[in-house]
């Protein structure tokens, strides 16, 4: 007899093997095509991190991480493209064990994609992140999307949900499928209807969700977005969340939002006990709670370099006491030279834990090939927690750019908190880009 965790582990391994075969087969096809292609691009980067810290029980931790990501794309002259995307990380503990496993890692994504020249056709196969209405899922499977006539568009996905189930008794489902049908007029509006269904072992109903989403942009100065999602297993609305944004001036934006979350429907079948509903003696989240939030925020940019913003949000609960969160921030930017910011916020709630002030001050200065940064984050509690009133982290860091491809960065963070008297942590990062250039003058940003 094998445990649920062992079963799941075996299932994940077989899924990974299937993905590996798909990716290898797809790579072979792609690599045989460049002669016919108009454009052949390889983009990738390697980020190596060495973290350093000492735990409360005097263990010296030196976990070494390698994040490797790359994509290969073959663009045809007709505008279509086939691409392969891979991203994974691995960790080895050079000192004491940082988790239960001295060596660990994860395939974050690995899929082959075909993007059509017309109708925004996308066909993906492999481990991927799907964002379609109610679905914000990582799956091992297939995804297809295509524009239809009359402003309609359709998307569908099917596969195995990639979930973590660390305690082996909160099922994340074995099989998931769903889709989204939308209709809209470019530049004016888009309305989408979406659904997902996830089954567990023995066809148990893990998740059945339906949703409505909208994006309305009737004027350049007005933008309305929102979604409602419904849980048909619990027969209740999980969430409504709507935002309206107004830009009365080029230099001023104002945003207001309203949301409501029904805990019993929203937290149904999560895979961590941290968010599981109270059931007898287990669980943390009260199924009878409902949260309503209402917020407003405004940002004013008197010059291109300066932004001044203020925000307010009210949290109203059916059971727990209410809270207000409000504050402001100032940001200053000189492109390729200096970024600096200051923010101050206050949480004013019904309980001691929900009465605190939050401060942040940061600066990033570029001096040729050298970057210097400082960051202070402080939370000051009205009533001390474990005898500590101020929880702060002060970080100083420096980086050196050897060339366009290679960069080294190191930071040192000192913190005091209700959980740690004095904590010192270090991190060294080596970033290497294989090729960050597009072959025909394309753009990159926060890759």
């Amino acid at each position, binding site marked *: 007899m094998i445990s649920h965790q062992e079963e799941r582990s075996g299932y994940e391994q077989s899924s990974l093997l299937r993905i590996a075969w798909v990716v290898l087969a797809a790579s072979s096809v792609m690599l045989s095509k460049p002669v016919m292609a108009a454009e052949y691009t390889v983009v990738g980067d390697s980020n190596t991190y060495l973290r350093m810290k000492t735990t409360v029980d005097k263990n010296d931790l030196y976990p070494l991480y390698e994040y490797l990501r790359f994509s290969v794309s073959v663009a045809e002259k007709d505008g279509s493209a086939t691409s392969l995307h891979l*991203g994974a990380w691995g960790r080895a503990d050079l000192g004491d064990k940082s988790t239960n496993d001295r060596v660990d890692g994860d395939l974050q994504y690995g899929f082959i994609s075909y993007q059509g020249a017309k109708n925004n056709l996308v066909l993906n196969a492999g481990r991927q992140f799907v964002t379609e209405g109610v679905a914000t899922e990582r799956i091992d499977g297939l995804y297809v999307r295509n524009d239809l006539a009359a402003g309609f568009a359709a998307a569908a996905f099917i596969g195995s949900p990639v979930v973590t189930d660390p305690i082996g008794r909160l099922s994340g489902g074995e099989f998931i499928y769903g889709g989204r049908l939308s209709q809209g007029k470019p530049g004016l509006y888009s309305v989408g209807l979406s659904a997902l269904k996830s089954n567990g072992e023995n066809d148990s109903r893990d998740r059945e969700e339906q949703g409505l989403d909208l994006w309305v942009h009737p004027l350049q100065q007005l933008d309305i977005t929102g979604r409602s999602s419904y849980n048909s297993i619990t027969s209740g609305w999980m969430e409504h969340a709507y935002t309206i944004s107004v830009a009365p001036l080029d230099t001023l934006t104002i945003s207001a939002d309203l949301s409501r979350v029904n805990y019993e429907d929203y937290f149904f079948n999560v895979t961590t006990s941290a968010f599981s509903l109270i059931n007898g003696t287990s669980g943390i989240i009260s199924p009878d709670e409902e949260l309503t939030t209402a917020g407003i925020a405004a940002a004013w940019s008197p010059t291109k370099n300066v932004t001044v913003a203020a925000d307010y949000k009210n*949290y109203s609960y059916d059971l727990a006491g209410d809270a207000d969160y409000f504050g402001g921030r100032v940001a200053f930017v000189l492109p390729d030279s200096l*970024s600096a910011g200051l923010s101050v916020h206050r949480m004013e709630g019904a309980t001691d834990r929900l009465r605190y002030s939050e401060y942040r001050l940061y600066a990033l200065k570029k001096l040729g090939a050298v970057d210097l940064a400082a960051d202070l984050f402080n939370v000051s509690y009205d009533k001390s927690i474990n005898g500590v009133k101020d929880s702060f982290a002060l970080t100083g860091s420096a980086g050196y750019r050897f060339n366009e491809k290679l960069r080294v960065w190191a*930071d040192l963070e000192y913190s005091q908190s209700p959980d740690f008297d004095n904590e010192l942590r270090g991190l060294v990062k080596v970033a290497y880009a294989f090729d960050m250039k597009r072959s025909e003058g394309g753009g990159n940003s926060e890759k």
Partner: protein
Amino acid sequence: MKNKFLILLMMPLLVSVLFACANTNSAPRVHPEAVTGTPNCTECHTDSWAAMNHQAVDFFEKHSIFASNARRACASCHAESFCADCHANKEEIKPSDKYKDSPQRWLPHRGDYLSQHRIDGRINPASCVKCHGRQNNERCVTCHK
């Protein structure tokens, strides 16, 4: 019964017609202009793309709607790894630690988050679920058995 049969017959036909008559141009795979830093899309765009202004106060709240409606537009600048930094199956380095070289970016869990997560979890646990409800929660079990 007859009505259901007709609906089942008509739906694929309708979808086939809509598919056959579709004729839109796909969004560009690569953004035509190089973009650096946190872009203000209103500097060039006056249509709905302007709403994706990354400097707007509500961009973070709205980014999931844009990801649903215009994922190809996101992909014209962002690699797949950009999503995976936060929406990961399994992750051990929090984004604000991974990118201490970019303090100007909005990144979750700055400072000592061990203490603060108890407060944020009480304030709005639903905001945690998109990244930690079904994924990336192995560390939770250290305390939450």
